[in-house]
């Protein structure tokens, strides 16, 4: 795709396991005002449209959309809620701009999951109400089953998954936004408490609070806003069946289809050679390997051994989750994809501080909406 849309502003809060001192409105305000400052824009005049990615039950409201405008500067302006991940929201902002209706769009996503005392029950509430929900239990049993199916069909191992945890939590030590940085070894993960076998405690990302905002602009507007635009040159999103029983549990078909759509738009034939680094969903350790293979960044069954060889480490051939990912930064729910986009933008701007990658021109961000969905998105960014 030609260079039609760029990220012209980016901001976020830090990510914290608890934010007792701030309301969800204050988190959103902090994320938004830092992005507007970064872009040098006044939302009340300069931003044409606002998109928030949110779900009622995460927020504890019916019609959460009501509570969005004031803290974003969107009062009496075009605004809407997209019930999807932050990357879905970015894609919707892109097509708003491409449709010609608006020029500048702000996309917000957040998690205030510390307000929710019944996370497990809410996740279970997303299961099919007739066939699955009555089975009850902790909804992450699905994670154990899927991890098992993936490892069995791909040939990757539990140790490979533990290697993902070790890499990402070590990476997070260099990310000032991340609360879960740590020198975690493969053995530490393997010896952690089995929870949803074969998934162990350290294979699972912890929930955190935070808010992220990106501002996008049409090419004609970009020059007057920023000297360091990061262009969006391809994006895609896709959903597999909502039926747990109807999926191929060994592969992430939503990631295959959404990346295919994004690569096509960006004119990428071979992502391994044409993309420099990626931020992929790792809400659970095996998901990173599953997604790497679905995105065509490693052959089927190869992601684990490639990881072992150091290929995905910050100094490897194809760095993945330099930010620390969800394992290192925490699970931001619908904001997870926007966090991935934020990291890619910072890397391409050369503003990733101690974790800055050298000579990167093109990066990929990918998201998955979490249990029990098979929905996700992918986006290609260029300097």
């Amino acid at each position, binding site marked *: 795709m030609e260079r039609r849309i760029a990220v012209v502003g980016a901001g976020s809060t830090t990510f914290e396991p608890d934010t007792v001192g701030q309301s969800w409105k204050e988190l959103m305000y902090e994320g938004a005002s830092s992005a507007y400052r970064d872009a040098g824009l006044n939302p009340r005049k300069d931003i044409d449209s606002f998109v928030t990615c949110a779900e009622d039950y995460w927020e504890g409201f019916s019609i959460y959309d009501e509570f969005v*405008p004031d803290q974003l500067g969107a*009062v009496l302006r075009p605004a*809407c809620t997209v*019930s999807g991940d932050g990357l879905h929201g970015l894609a919707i902002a892109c*097509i708003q701009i491409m449709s010609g209706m608006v020029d500048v769009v702000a996309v917000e996503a957040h998690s205030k999951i510390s307000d929710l005392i019944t996370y497990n029950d809410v996740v279970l509430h997303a299961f099919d109400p007739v066939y699955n929900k009555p089975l009850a239990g902790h909804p992450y049993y699905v994670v154990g089953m899927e991890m098992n199916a993936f490892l069995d069909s791909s040939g990757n191992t539990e140790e490979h998954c533990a290697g993902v945890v070790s890499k990402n939590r070590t990476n997070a030590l260099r990310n000032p936004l991340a609360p879960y940085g740590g020198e975690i070894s493969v053995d530490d993960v393997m010896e952690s408490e089995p929870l949803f076998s074969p998934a162990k405690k350290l294979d699972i990302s912890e929930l955190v609070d935070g808010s992220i905002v990106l501002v996008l602009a049409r090419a004609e507007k970009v020059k007057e806003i920023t000297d360091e635009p990061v262009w969006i040159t391809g994006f895609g999103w896709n*959903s597999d069946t909502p039926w747990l029983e109807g999926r191929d549990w060994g592969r992430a078909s939503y990631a295959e*289809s959404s990346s295919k759509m994004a690569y096509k738009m960006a004119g990428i034939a071979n992502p391994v050679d044409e993309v420099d680094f990626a931020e992929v969903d790792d809400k659970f350790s095996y998901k990173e390997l599953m997604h790497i293979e679905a995105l065509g960044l490693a052959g089927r069954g190869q992601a684990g051994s490639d990881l072992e060889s150091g290929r995905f480490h910050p100094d490897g051939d194809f760095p993945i989750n330099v930010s620390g990912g969800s394992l290192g930064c925490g699970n931001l729910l619908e904001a997870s994809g926007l966090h991935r986009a934020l990291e890619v933008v910072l890397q391409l701007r050369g503003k990733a501080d101690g974790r800055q990658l050298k000579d990167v021109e093109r990066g990929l961000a990918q998201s998955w909406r979490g249990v*029990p969905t098979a929905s996700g998105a992918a986006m290609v960014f260029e300097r």
Partner: protein
Amino acid sequence: MRRVAVLGGGMTIFRRRLQETGKEMSFEASRMALNEAGLELSDVDSVVLGSAPDAFDGIHLKGENLLDGAGAVGKPYIRVFVGGGTAVFTPIAGWWHVASGLADVCLVVAEEKMSSCFPHPQSAFGHIWDPILDRPLKPNLVWIFAMEMNRYMTVHNVRKEDIARVAVKNKRNALDHPSAQLAADLTVDDVLNSEVMAWPVQRLDISPPSDGASALILASEDVAKKLTDDPVFLAGAGWCIDSTMWTDRDLYFPEYVARAARMAYKMAKIENPRKEIDVAEPYDPFDYKELHHMEGLLLCDKGEAPILTREGVTQRDGDLPTCPSGGLLGVGNPIAATMGIKACEIYWQLAGKAGKRQVPTDPQTGICQAWGDLMQYGSVLIMRRG
């Protein structure tokens, strides 16, 4: 910008649909729209779904649950959500898909299943309030609409009789709608003598909760020209949200609707909406809301809508036919799915497919609008023939 046409519409019967799931209703409406367009699901490039609170269906991530019923497996699929405004906002989101070049054919589906919220969908509305400022007062939607209606009547010195005429007109129009839930031949006195809910709102001033789904097929001009000689095009869109703090504004006029309308008129190059709009479907969950929204849509002066209604201008054979479908008051109010009596109705009226509901003036340009969140959201869509 690529022009975008409407090729087909569909909607289920609006009722308490205990036998069908939301997935099944979504399928039914989608299949009807595809049949009308002469297309198959394999022709659809992307799917947009609109549905209001998850608490109605009682399913977290409701959009994910409904996606196979809406035909979206293996396709780019997104759900948008702006409260009651979703009914007209969802086709606007579909418009972006086609106008951007991302899709040549986009299936737009709107679904609501309120009856599974027990004992009454009103209980889901218990959670729409600010948890500190409003919720401890245990407010109820009928109460705050009573406040808005009262304010509107007070500012413009409107009589209840003139508001009741809207309910009479819409419920009578609904007699011609095959999906209608509360069609009736009533008199103004019937409305004025109905049970008082929260003064000045009475039983027959209100639309009924309902279950249902509706769907629209949007397509690029190239696809449209292969399938029809006389396509209906999307001509203007606007959407706008006001502050969450509803207590801070004068409720007599919906400024957010006016801003959304101006955005849509500008896009459609309409300078004088009163002259250029031939048929209108403003959101009418309460009878006074039709009047409120006619004024918000700038189809008449502030305070003039009750007079036009009294003079018969808004009747199906009047100068400005308004809610010829029968509206929410007559056909029913399954929140997002009312797309079927707003956006679908305007399409059917312009395409000459409205059957017994067809307005007799050969309309060229029509407008529809929905309203939602906490009396703070306006979504507006304009369609035009050729």
